[in-house]
């Protein structure tokens, strides 16, 4: 096998014939593509998150300083503040990912670097599970004195059902979407169903690296 591997190969002569000038061009081209491919999705996430937080802040600011104190104001400001807090946490996790991407060192051993890269792909799971926690608060921001005191039975049935189901869903997703549960078929299907196929792939790869490293 070694003899075949080392046998002369004409293709190598014509391969990667770089000089100083073409090397310069390669550098510029690759510097651009790298930023695009690795950090782009995280930057999109951060931009959307910050946009949403700013919008919520404007609403909170106008409500606090431009409307009289009321029962409804408490629900509105309270719900939006929790949404802002949870979205900020998700944005923070994305920022942390960008810092990790910048710190990835390809000159570390293959298993270490590959493990870090796969974990990075998997880290989206943290932002996703945290983000779900804001779900019930989208069903409470509009509550006011009038609705609570004078709301009819249908209003209460719908309100309790929607808030109840979103609270249950948020807690269930927060508790179940984690690394350990990615082995469970139900969670795997859920993640793949919402387009996070790369997350389950990353999890499989982490297992593969672990087996490779520890001879299992």
């Amino acid at each position, binding site marked *: 096998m070694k003899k075949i591997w080392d046998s002369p190969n004409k293709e190598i002569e014509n391969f990667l014939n770089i000089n100083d000038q073409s090397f*310069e061009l390669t550098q510029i081209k690759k510097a651009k593509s790298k930023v695009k491919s690795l950090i782009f999705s995280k930057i999109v996430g951060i931009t959307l998150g910050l946009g949403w937080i700013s919008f919520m802040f404007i609403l909170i600011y106008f409500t606090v300083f431009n409307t009289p104190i009321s029962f409804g104001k408490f629900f509105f400001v309270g719900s939006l503040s929790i949404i802002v807090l949870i979205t900020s946490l998700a944005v923070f996790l994305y920022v942390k990912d960008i810092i990790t991407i910048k710190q990835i060192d390809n000159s570390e051993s293959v298993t270490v670097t590959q493990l870090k890269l796969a974990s990075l792909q998997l880290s989206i799971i943290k932002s996703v599970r945290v983000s779900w926690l804001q779900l019930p608060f989208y069903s409470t921001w509009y509550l006011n004195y009038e609705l609570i005191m004078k709301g009819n039975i249908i209003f209460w049935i719908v309100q309790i059902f929607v808030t109840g189901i979103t609270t249950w869903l948020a807690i269930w997703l927060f508790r179940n979407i984690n690394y350990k549960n990615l082995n469970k078929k139900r969670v795997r299907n859920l993640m793949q169903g919402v387009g996070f196929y790369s997350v389950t792939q990353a999890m499989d790869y982490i297992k593969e690296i672990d087996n490779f490293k520890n001879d299992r």
Partner: protein
Amino acid sequence: MMNNQIDKKEFVRLIQENKGIVFKICNSYCQDKEGREDLAQEIVYQLWRSIQTFHAELKFSTWMYRITLNVAISYYRKSKRVNTIVSLSENLTDIIDENEGYEDEYEKDRMLLQNLINDLKELDRTLIILFLEAKTYKEIAEILGMTETNVATKIYRIKEQLKQKIMNFKNQRIWKTRI
């Protein structure tokens, strides 16, 4: 910082000296010519970018293999998500026999070996490439981040696996010529 010590000219010279291994690794992780060139450029870019992290206590070849393999595996995994990588070994007899452009048996054998390597799992490929590049178990362990014993066991298994596949391939060819 290494960047200050190795200028562009020196770096380009080092790349030209080691382009054989870059080619073989690209060949093992990318099947189309265009993709191979793109991967090679990515490797060169990453080598230049990482040269500042080069530590004197590490052998230059160990450092280079680590970066080249890491970039190649990441590239492969990225393209695997986009395209379905087709396993070649099943139809290898046809592929190799139908290609008449080979000048000698070595070229045929090289294609067979390359395709069998490309059919291994991405991490197993690193082991056999480094083994064929005559790296010691110690250096392989250092490049991959595993123990020497584990390297030895795995290489033995992969070699057996490849031997078996080569035997099957040769038997298939004998059958074909008889028919």
